[in-house]
């Protein structure tokens, strides 16, 4: 898969993800981690390459194929991106009712359960600007889960949070991992990645440089670039 304008932002990214796996994407800023996630949900159009989900290739130029792909992926953004004009409950329930045309009563019951699961049962009627960053991010995770995705994409979901709020979001993700959710996690929380990821992919300058179990990637890096990266990360 590759993406880019004048200079390719991504090139030579090849990655297979099994069901139930949690993949950690790490790498320096600008290495293309977020670009991969944004490309998967069709917010950026790939120039070349192929994304295959359950054996079926995704054609990002075709609306119907893109729609099918977006049904299977759900993304959570760094800045939460909750709809500012809707309550927490509505944020979670809107896509299933509107896009998937499911029964509103049933969807809202599910949405309440999801919000309870991320610890926000009392905040169903709060608007985003009435919630803390950590609470907003947990609503955003509930919103993504309401779509019943096959694969959850987490794009630096704790990067915009105050340090004391990071824990609550990470706990939520840990619980998802225990439930067997397939996830691609872009994060700078190396300790967390090490803990939840089944495999870690190190990206640099738009390419996957190294992939492997966390222990291998963090403790026995083979490429000089990864060694350089981990040594700088682990120093603080």
């Amino acid at each position, binding site marked *: 898969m590759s993406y880019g304008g004048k200079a390719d932002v991504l090139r030579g990214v090849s990655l297979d993800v099994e069901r139930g796996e949690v993949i950690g994407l790490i790498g320096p800023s600008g290495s293309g981690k977020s670009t991969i996630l*944004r490309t998967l949900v069709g917010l950026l159009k790939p120039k070349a390459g192929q994304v295959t989900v359950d054996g079926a290739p995704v054609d990002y130029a075709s609306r119907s194929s893109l729609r099918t792909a977006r*049904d299977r992926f759900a993304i959570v*953004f760094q800045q939460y991106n909750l*709809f*500012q*004009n809707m309550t927490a409950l509505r944020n979670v329930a809107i896509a299933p009712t*509107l*896009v998937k045309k499911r029964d509103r009563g049933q969807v809202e019951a599910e949405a309440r359960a999801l919000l309870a699961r991320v610890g926000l049962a009392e905040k169903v009627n709060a608007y985003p600007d009435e919630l803390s960053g950590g609470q907003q991010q947990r609503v955003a995770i509930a*919103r993504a889960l309401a*779509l019943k995705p096959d694969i959850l994409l987490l794009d630096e979901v704790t990067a915009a949070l105050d340090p004391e709020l990071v824990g609550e979001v990470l706990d939520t993700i840990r619980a998802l991992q225990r439930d067997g959710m397939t996830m691609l996690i872009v994060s700078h929380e190396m300790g967390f990645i090490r803990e939840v990821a089944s495999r870690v992919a190190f990206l640099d300058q738009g390419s996957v440089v190294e992939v492997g179990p966390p222990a291998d990637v963090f403790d026995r890096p083979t490429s000089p670039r990864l060694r350089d990266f981990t040594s700088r990360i682990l120093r603080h």
Partner: protein
Amino acid sequence: MWEQVIEDAPRFFGPWNLLFLGEALVNTLLLSYLGAGIGFVIGFGLAIGRHPRLYGVLPLRIAATAYVEIFRRIPFLVKLMCVFFAFQLSGAQASLFTVALVTVVLSAAAFAAEIARAGIESVPAPQWDAAEAMNFSRWRVLTRVVAPQSWRVALPPLFGYAVGFIKSTSIASQIGVLELTYAAKILNTRGFSALLCFGTILVVYFLICWPTKRLGERLEARLGRRAKA
């Protein structure tokens, strides 16, 4: 001067004149509210057609942009003349009122398109990203996410321009449309004091503009408290 006003007043506010002024008032209201209303709807359409993330295909974008940029920059009187002569050239039978109404619509559409564009652009791109990634159609991104958040930005200038159009309709008197200003001119030429004629429509214009402005302020305050759907 005041003696003449007092002397003229009973005759000025006689039934015939009141009927005449009433008809003029109706025309002013129709030109203002109907014209601005239709124009605003067309303007929103233009803004949607211009937006690259909505329905903005290139030829449509160029045409809409050209229209908006040109029509916002021509004085109302010139637009009025252009529409007037365009109707004449085309040979279409149109009343002077229609000419004026079309002019207001064309003006309002251009200004509303620009206001709506600013409103749409006030909604940050990540809001679009989230909706698109969840498979919202363009129409739903617009109606469920973008438009409800745009109103707060778009409403105050929209009402500002609405008041502006009420005042602009007075220019239609230049081609002889019977609206308030023209009515005052006619009554003045019939010998009523200028102070009485123009003083009366001054009050009437104020009575139209002021509530319009207040309505805008109240909607704005309501949206400010809770700009939510």
